[in-house]
C-alpha cells in the first residue's frame, strides 16, 4: 500500500493548501516527514474552514456570554436558555462554493449540514432559514443559480420535515462569480439533555453512524494524484449529493439513542469528516483516539486511508458510546436502516492514531492538531471613510411615483413569495408567523411560548463603512425580533468575505467584526455560534462584505405577537425613532 502513496513534494504540499512555513510548522511539531495520510489530516485541520486561522484572532472580540447562554461558540451549535427547562440550539453555516458549482446539491447539502449541527446537540430542529445572495439578475448564470439553490433548499428541508420559515435574498453584480448560500437551523432541547463533542472515559468504543463513506468532496489534492486510485478515468466530483431521507432517519435514530442514554459524546462529520470529528472529540476530552479504518462502512471499493480520512460524504456521525450500551445502540440504528460500526476507541495517550489493513497510517499528537494550528494576524487596512454625499450635488429628476416604482420593482425589494412558497413553511404546525413579516414566529410545543427568528445584513452598508454596517446588521436583527413582540436573546453569524490575504479585505472583516461586537455588547445580544467563509472572490473581485446575522428571541405568549399588516381603515399610523 505505502508504495502507492505519492512522495511528499513541495507541489503536493501546495496542492494541499499548506504554505511552506505551515509545512515547516508540521515538521517541527512531529519531528519527521508526515505520511501522505498525515499530510491530508493536517491540510484538513489547518485549512481556513476548520482552523479559522485568519479570523480567530478577531473573533475573540465578540461578546459570547450572558446569563442565558448555555453554550457559546466552539460546539456544533450555540445553546441558549429560553426558560421552563428548555433551550434553543442554533447556528448558521455557509455552503457558498459548492452551491456555485452545483446549485441544487450544494444548497441541499448546506441545509443538511446545518440541520445535523443542531440535532447533534440533542435538539430536534424546529425551523430553518436561509440567507441568499446572487449576482446581477441579468448575469447569464444568475437565473440558473437562483432556481437551483431555491429548489435544493426546499428539496432537502421539505423532505427532512422542518419548516423553512424565513430568510433573505439579495442581488448585486459583485456576487456574479460567487453566490452566497447561508443556511440557519434552530432546534429545541431540554436544558439538561444537551449533548457535546467532548469525549470522556478511556477505552470506550468510537462508533460510526449513518450513511456509507464514498469519495465525495475529496479536494484538489486527490485530483492531482488521482493515478493511484480507482476510477481515475472520470474526474472525481467535488460536490456531494444530499440524501435528506437518510438524514431524517439519522435524526430519529440519534434522538432515540440519546434518549436511551447510550451517548457519551457525539460529533457530526461535516467538512473533512472523519478527521475533524475524531480529533475534536478526543482533543476536547483530553483523550487520544485510535481508529481502525478496516471497519468503516464504504460505498466504493478500494478506498485508501487518505480518502476515508478526508471524505466529505454526507449524513454521517461519530459517537462515543457509553460502556455496555453498544448492543442497544446498534439495535436502534439497525431499526432505522442505518450503518453502525465500531471504528475505534478512546485512549489515554493523547495520540490520534489511524490504522488501515494492519498498518499505522497516521500517528499524531491530538491536541496540537487543533491547538497548534496556524493563527494569523493578517495585515489589514482601514476602509477609507466615504465622502458625505451632498444632496444638492445630485441630479434629482425622478418623480415620487417614478422613484417608488423603481424601488418596488427592484429585485431586492420585489416579493419573495415565489421563493418561500417552494419551502414547506407550515409543517409541524407551529409556524405562527409565516414568511412575509419582520421575523418568523414559531410556537414551542402547544405554546403559549414561541421563538422569533430572523436573518439580516445590508452588504452595501458594510462596504461603505464596515464598522457601521456590522452594527447595523445586528441592530436590524434586534429590531425585527422586537417588531413581532419578541425579546432578543442571542445571535449566530456567518461572515462572508473575499480573500483575507488582501489587507483591504481583511480590513472589512476586522471592521465588520468590531461593529458587530459593539452592537452585540451594547444590546446584550451575544454571539453563540457562527461560521466564516473567506476567499469569496473571482479574478480578484471580491463579494460585498456580507456578515449575515441570524437572530433568535423569545415570546412569552405568541398570541400577543405583532404582525406587519395594517388591520383596519382609519387607524393611526405612528413613525417611531429618529
Amino acid at each position, binding site marked *: 500500500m505505502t508504495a502507492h502513496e505519492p512522495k511528499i513534494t513541495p507541489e503536493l504540499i501546495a496542492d494541499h493548501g499548506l504554505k511552506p512555513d505551515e509545512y515547516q510548522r508540521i515538521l517541527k511539531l512531529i519531528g519527521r516527514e508526515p505520511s501522505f495520510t498525515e499530510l491530508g489530516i493536517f491540510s484538513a485541520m489547518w485549512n481556513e474552514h476548520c482552523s479559522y486561522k485568519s479570523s480567530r484572532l478577531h473573533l475573540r472580540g465578540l461578546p459570547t456570554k450572558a446569563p442565558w447562554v448555555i453554550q457559546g461558540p466552539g460546539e456544533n451549535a450555540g445553546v441558549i436558555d429560553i426558560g421552563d427547562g428548555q433551550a434553543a440550539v442554533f447556528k448558521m453555516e455557509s455552503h457558498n462554493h459548492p452551491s456555485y458549482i452545483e446549485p441544487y446539491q450544494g444548497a441541499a447539502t448546506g441545509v443538511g449540514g446545518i440541520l445535523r449541527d443542531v440535532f447533534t446537540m440533542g435538539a430536534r430542529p424546529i425551523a430553518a432559514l436561509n440567507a441568499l445572495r446572487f449576482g446581477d439578475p441579468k448575469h447569464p448564470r444568475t437565473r440558473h443559480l437562483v432556481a437551483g439553490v431555491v*429548489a435544493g433548499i426546499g*428539496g432537502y428541508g421539505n423532505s427532512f*420535515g422542518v419548516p423553512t420559515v424565513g430568510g433573505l435574498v439579495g442581488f448585486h453584480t459583485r456576487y456574479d462569480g460567487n453566490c452566497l448560500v447561508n443556511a440557519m437551523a434552530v432546534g429545541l432541547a431540554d436544558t439538561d439533555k444537551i449533548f457535546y463533542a467532548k469525549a470522556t472515559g478511556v477505552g470506550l468504543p468510537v462508533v460510526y453512524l449513518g450513511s456509507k463513506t464514498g469519495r465525495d468532496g475529496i479536494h484538489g489534492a486527490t485530483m492531482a494524484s488521482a493515478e493511484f486510485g480507482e476510477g481515475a478515468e472520470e474526474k472525481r466530483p467535488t460536490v456531494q449529493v444530499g440524501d*435528506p431521507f437518510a438524514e*431524517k432517519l439519522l435524526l430519529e435514530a440519534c434522538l432515540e439513542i440519546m434518549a436511551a442514554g447510550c451517548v457519551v459524546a457525539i460529533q457530526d462529520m461535516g467538512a473533512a469528516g472523519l478527521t475533524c470529528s475524531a480529533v475534536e472529540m478526543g482533543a476536547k476530552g483530553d483523550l487520544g483516539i485510535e481508529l481502525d479504518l478496516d471497519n468503516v462502512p464504504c460505498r466504493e471499493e478500494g478506498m485508501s486511508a487518505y480518502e476515508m480520512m478526508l471524505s466529505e460524504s454526507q449524513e454521517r456521525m461519530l459517537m462515543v458510546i457509553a460502556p455496555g450500551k453498544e448492543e442497544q445502540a446498534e439495535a436502534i440504528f439497525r431499526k432505522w436502516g442505518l450503518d453502525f460500526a465500531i471504528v475505534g476507541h478512546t485512549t489515554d495517550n493523547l495520540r490520534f492514531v489511524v490504522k488501515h489493513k494492519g498498518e499505522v497510517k497516521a500517528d499524531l499528537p491530538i491536541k496540537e492538531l487543533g491547538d497548534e494550528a496556524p493563527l494569523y494576524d493578517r495585515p489589514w487596512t482601514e476602509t477609507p471613510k466615504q465622502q458625505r454625499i451632498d444632496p444638492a450635488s445630485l441630479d434629482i429628476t425622478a418623480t415620487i411615483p417614478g422613484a417608488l416604482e423603481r424601488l418596488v420593482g427592484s429585485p431586492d425589494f420585489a416579493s419573495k413569495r415565489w421563493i418561500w412558497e*417552494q419551502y414547506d413553511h407550515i*409543517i*409541524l404546525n407551529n409556524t405562527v408567523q409565516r414568511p412575509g413579516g419582520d421575523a418568523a414566529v414559531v410556537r414551542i410545543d402547544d405554546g403559549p411560548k414561541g421563538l422569533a427568528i430572523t436573518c439580516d445584513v445590508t452588504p452595501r452598508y458594510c462596504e461603505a463603512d464596515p464598522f457601521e454596517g456590522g452594527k447595523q446588521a445586528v441592530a436590524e436583527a434586534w429590531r425585527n425580533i422586537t417588531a413581532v413582540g419578541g425579546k432578543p436573546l442571542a445571535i449566530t453569524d456567518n461572515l462572508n468575505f473575499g480573500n483575507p490575504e488582501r489587507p483591504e479585505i481583511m480590513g472589512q472583516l476586522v471592521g465588520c467584526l468590531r461593529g458587530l461586537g459593539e452592537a452585540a455588547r451594547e444590546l446584550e445580544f451575544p454571539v453563540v455560534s457562527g461560521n466564516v467563509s473567506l476567499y469569496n472572490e473571482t479574478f480578484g473581485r471580491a463579494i460585498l462584505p456580507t456578515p449575515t446575522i441570524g437572530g433568535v428571541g423569545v415570546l412569552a405568549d405568541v*398570541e400577543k405577537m405583532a404582525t406587519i399588516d395594517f388591520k383596519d381603515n382609519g387607524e393611526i399610523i405612528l413613525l417611531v425613532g429618529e
Partner: protein
Amino acid sequence: MKSAVLVFPGSNREGDVARALEHVSGSKPALVWHAETSLPAGTDLVVLPGGFSYGDYLRCGAIAARAAIMDAVRDHAARGGLVLGICNGFQILCESGLLPGVLVRNARLRFICREALLKVERNDTPFTRRYSKGAIVRYPVAHGEGNYTADAETLKRLEDEGRVVFRYVMADGRRDDTQVLNGAANSIAGIISEKLNVLGLMPHPENHVDPLVGPTDGRAMFESLVGALERA
C-alpha cells in the same frame, strides 16, 4: 374513536395529524411502524400521513405502498374500515391500488406550499359530513407531486360515480382546470373509494385546525370522523 397513524421511514407529518386527531377527538392515536404486520386491535381509522416515505425515491409513495403494514391496511379497508391518506398518504394509497390513478409532478415542476381553496363536492361521506355540500374551504398544500392523473376511463368513472370529494377552485368558487395549482386532472384534490371508506387528498386539513397557526377549516374533517365513528 381508535385511530392509528402509520409511520414509514421518511414520514414527517405523522405528528401534525396525530396532534389534530387528539385535539378534536380527545384521544391519542397509536403510531404504527411500517414493519408491523397488524393494526392495533379495534382500530377504527387508519391514517397514512404526509411526508417523503423512503425519500419519495423511485416514485412518490411507491416503496411505502409495498411495506409490510399495507396488507393489514388493505384488510381493514376491505372490512369497511376507514382509511385517510393525506399528501404522501394519498400517493401511497394510489400506488397500493386502494385508490385509482396516480400523482405525478406538479405541472410547473416546483414544490408548492400555500393555502388552496377547495370545494367540498359531497358531504355524505364519513370524512365530510360536518361540511355543507358545495362549501368552499381553505386547506394548505405542501407538495411537489400532487398532479392527479388517471386514464380517461378512470376519470369518467370517478366523475360518474361522484367520487371526487375535493376539488381545487378559484377565489370565486369556480373550477378552472387550466389554472389548477398543480395541474391535476379535473382539478381533483381528493377522491374516495367506491364504498366511501377510503379517502385520499393532497391538501392538509391537519394543518388547519388550530386558530393560532392559521384558519380552522380542517377541523370539520376530524369532527366528521369522530361523529361517524360515534354513530357506528
